[in-house]
């Protein structure tokens, strides 16, 4: 860990906030993708169609 001196809070908070925001976006995107795919698969199976 590098010595961040008196600016440690600013630097670490920047990295933490960025990680939080981007991880949130990625998690939301993955969840929406899985939920939509599952719902579409169910309807297609019911109607006898294949994914386009």
């Amino acid at each position, binding site marked *: 860990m590098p010595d961040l001196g008196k*600016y440690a809070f*600013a630097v670490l908070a920047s990295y933490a906030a960025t990680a939080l925001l*981007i991880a949130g*976006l990625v998690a939301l995107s993955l969840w929406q*993708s899985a939920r939509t795919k599952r719902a579409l698969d169910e309807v297609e199976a019911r109607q006898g169609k294949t994914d386009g």
Partner: protein
Amino acid sequence: MSIWEYANPKKFMQTSAWVLPWAVGLTVACLVVGLVWGFFFTPDDYKQGSTVKIIYLHVPSAMMAINAWVMMLVASLIWIVRRHHVSALAAKAAAPIGLTFTLVALVTGALWGQPMWGTWWAWDPRLTSFLILCLFYLGYIALWEAIENPDTAADLTSILCLVGSVFALLSRYAVNFWNQGLHQGASLSLDREENVSNVFWVPLLVCIAGFVLLFVTLVLMRTRTEIRARRLKALLARERVA
């Protein structure tokens, strides 16, 4: 072979399924290398001290916040002119990503500004135009959610995107238009005189590549979700009629 083939949802789904694993791998590689290099293996700046490490997050996210809007603008224009549904859905898919990058740029900028400028926020031309861009992102996403008919939503959000482009451009060039702001000029430029030192510049370029790839990866993933959601809606509507 034409780029318009990818306006066909089936072709887009096939191609993006092949591209996505590579895009994910490259994104992770660039972000890990760039951020580890920047955080652990670059020296402190003689003026900014260790806060210079924030540059590896702030500059790429600010660039991508503006570039995401430009991509949405191009996709919106394609929708308006050629009525390709995939382009409208790609613009819709890009908005939450652009909003996240804008928030990252605003938060990291405030965290850097407090020790360097002595304030978290100033009504500086670039900061203010960035805040307005953030509000445009929120408005754009809200407009998509508010309208039931997807074609009408695509039409209206495309117009909003055209209007918001003024602020995306202002965010980029505000420091050149007005000199009275706190925000400094560009950290990266084709003019080598204006660039940051090489010791910061090279890892910064790797981080920028990582953020660009992250954007591409997420746009592909989210556009695939939007295409599936649209197909799901159509199948459910058909089921209700039958």
